[in-house]
């Protein structure tokens, strides 16, 4: 199950390089800071800091970004507990019982529960990842260009159909992103869509485009927000009570384990991730608990279920990204872009040939989870002040930082111009409920999808019957059709139900 040679190399890699560790604490702090600010998402924080990783080595860069990811996971739960406002969409279910606990004066206990569940969730998902990497790498290496093409399209379809309110809007966002990803010269040497602009020959600059779509667009949406939180009372933080909450969580091992499993599975499906897993885990915990009727009224089990699931989704999303090179959402899309920035192609060949690096990333995440314990405890003292940062200063400042970041990539104005154009497109897409993450993933996968389709065409000589010789591809296609039909059906049923409820009221 575990390749011990590669694991040993991973330890050597981490123990001989200080640079791999030096960015963990700053990454966690950045994640906690941005995660605790409602309206500023995990992906936004990662996108803003992505250009900075260009000047780091590959492993420290990935560790820095995953530290932001880990920190933001818990950061989002702090305002959820203290102020009933989820810092990120993954902390929605945390508010259901976290805030009622706060109202009862049990906010320290709730924070302790959230912190321990987050840490255990992250740890368990990466332990699982450590065990499945070796067998998964054997399977994914057998995938040819047709299978990779179908998997990428499946991921995009899921992302387009599950994220957002409307399937056509989701799929339009995904196909638009995919087309953008093919601009420039393709692998057969044809140049399209450059409008005579020389820097588009290599394609749309991915990182500034992602920063525009994921970060700058959301900042423009916040222009009319004065403070994130304006009139909530400050609550007194007690370390002793937080630690009591921390200990209390160990009484609910089954809920943590169920939350972690739900998180890993849901996290590995493109388009779903932690924003759904926390809700699903919460409803499962409520359904199975003998005191289910007290959920929503300050039941600690609700906080544990939500937090263990949202933090373990990270490991699930990382598994899909590392094994298949398919990002399931904005955060893993940014990680994949960081791979590309260091001239490393994520996916089957990476996982097979660089298992030491994969294990190093996993081990570093164990350390991140444990460090989060300490840093998270200190952070809750400041969190209630952070959400009071005036947005009138924050928005223009972060926009300018993003612009500098995009300029830092190659020292030309191609980055800032791309960032600004995609900020406007992203703002309009968010305004009309298009899932921007689908466009981002499409943009990243465009080249890969076209390259694999082209290779399939060349191998098969254009004969569609070639697909019949690839049972793996047929199986994935069948899964794709079934999952898409199911998600379309459930979305239609939900809308009909909502329509009926509106009519009845």
């Amino acid at each position, binding site marked *: 199950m575990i390749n011990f040679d590669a694991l040993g190399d991973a330890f050597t890699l981490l123990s001989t390089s200080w640079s791999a560790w030096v960015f963990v604490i700053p990454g966690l702090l950045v994640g906690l800071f941005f995660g605790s600010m409602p309206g500023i998402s995990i992906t936004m924080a990662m996108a803003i800091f992505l250009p900075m990783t260009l*000047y780091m080595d590959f492993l420290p860069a990935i560790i820095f970004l995953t530290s932001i990811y880990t920190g933001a996971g818990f950061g989002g739960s702090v305002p959820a507990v203290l102020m009933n406002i989820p810092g990120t969409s993954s902390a929605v279910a945390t508010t259901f019982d976290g805030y009622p606990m706060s109202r009862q004066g049990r906010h320290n206990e709730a924070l302790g529960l959230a912190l321990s569940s987050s840490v255990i969730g992250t740890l368990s998902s990466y332990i699982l990842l450590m065990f499945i990497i070796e067998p998964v790498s054997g399977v994914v290496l057998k995938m040819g260009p047709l299978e990779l093409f179908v998997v990428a399209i499946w991921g995009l379809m899921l992302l387009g159909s599950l994220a*957002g*309110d*409307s399937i*056509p*809007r989701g799929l*339009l966002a995904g*196909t*638009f992103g*995919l*087309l953008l990803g*093919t601009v420039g010269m*393709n692998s057969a040497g*044809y*140049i*399209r*869509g450059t409008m005579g602009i020389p820097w588009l020959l290599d394609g749309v600059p991915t990182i500034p485009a992602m920063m525009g779509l994921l970060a*700058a667009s959301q900042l*423009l*949406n916040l*222009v*009319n927000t004065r403070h994130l939180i304006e009139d909530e009372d400050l609550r007194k933080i007690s370390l002793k009570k937080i630690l009591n909450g921390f200990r209390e969580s160990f009484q609910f091992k089954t809920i943590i384990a169920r939350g972690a499993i739900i998180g890993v599975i849901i996290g590995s499906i493109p388009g779903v991730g932690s924003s759904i897993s926390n809700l699903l885990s919460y409803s499962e915990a409520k359904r199975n608990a003998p005191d289910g009727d007290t959920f929503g009224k300050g039941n600690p089990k609700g906080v544990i279920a939500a937090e263990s699931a949202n933090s373990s989704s990270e490991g699930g999303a990382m598994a899909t990204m590392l094994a298949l090179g398919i990002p399931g959402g904005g955060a893993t899309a940014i990680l994949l872009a960081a791979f590309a920035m260091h001239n490393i192609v994520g996916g089957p060949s990476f996982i097979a040939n660089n298992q030491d690096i994969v294990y190093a990333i996993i081990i570093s995440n164990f350390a991140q989870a444990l460090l989060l314990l300490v840093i998270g405890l200190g952070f809750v003292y400041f969190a209630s002040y952070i959400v009071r940062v*005036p947005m*009138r*200063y924050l*928005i*223009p*400042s972060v*926009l*300018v*930082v993003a*612009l*500098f970041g995009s*300029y*830092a990539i190659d*020292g030309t*104005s191609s980055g*800032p*111009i791309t960032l*600004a154009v995609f*900020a406007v*497109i992203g*703002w*309009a897409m968010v*305004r*009309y*409920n298009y899932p921007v993450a689908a466009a981002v993933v499409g943009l990243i996968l465009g080249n890969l*999808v*076209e390259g694999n*389709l*082209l290779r399939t*065409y060349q191998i098969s000589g*254009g004969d569609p019957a070639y697909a019949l010789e690839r049972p793996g591809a047929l199986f994935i296609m069948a899964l794709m059709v079934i999952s898409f039909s199911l998600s379309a059906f459930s979305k239609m049923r939900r*809308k*009909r139900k*909502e*329509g009926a*409820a*509106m009519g009845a*009221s």
Partner: protein
Amino acid sequence: MQKTGKIKVQWGHLALLAVLGTAILAYLLDARATSLRTNNLILVQPMSILALILLLMVLPQCFQRVPPAGAEEDHAALPATPKETPIELAKIGVVTGAFILLAFFMEQIGFDIAVFSFLVLGIFVCGERNWIANIAFSAVFTALLIYGYGAIIPFPFPLAVL
């Protein structure tokens, strides 16, 4: 079934679809003008056609029937519509416009002057009415950014004053 109420057009959504549709169509035509060989069009052509079909499916959602006063609204049928006031929308427009100008012209103007001006304007539009605080923060933040980023990246920033 009797349908009452006026049709409300989401002009912004319509504009977004027009931009996306024009971009997709222009890209398809450009790709076809480059070469009609399969190696060129294998993905771009079918994806462009699919995107245009999806766009036509979304198009009717730009026209929403507003129920007459007193009638129940059918919110479930369509995604929520944005609800900013014209002033709020104008503020977003000003910050966005200034951001685009900054991105396009900061090399010509000089990063220091361009960034400082954007910050002053942006902070004012976002609600700060204390000019001293605004100008002091913008000046300090601009200097910090230019010297901070200048220390870590190998490219020089075109500057006018600093």
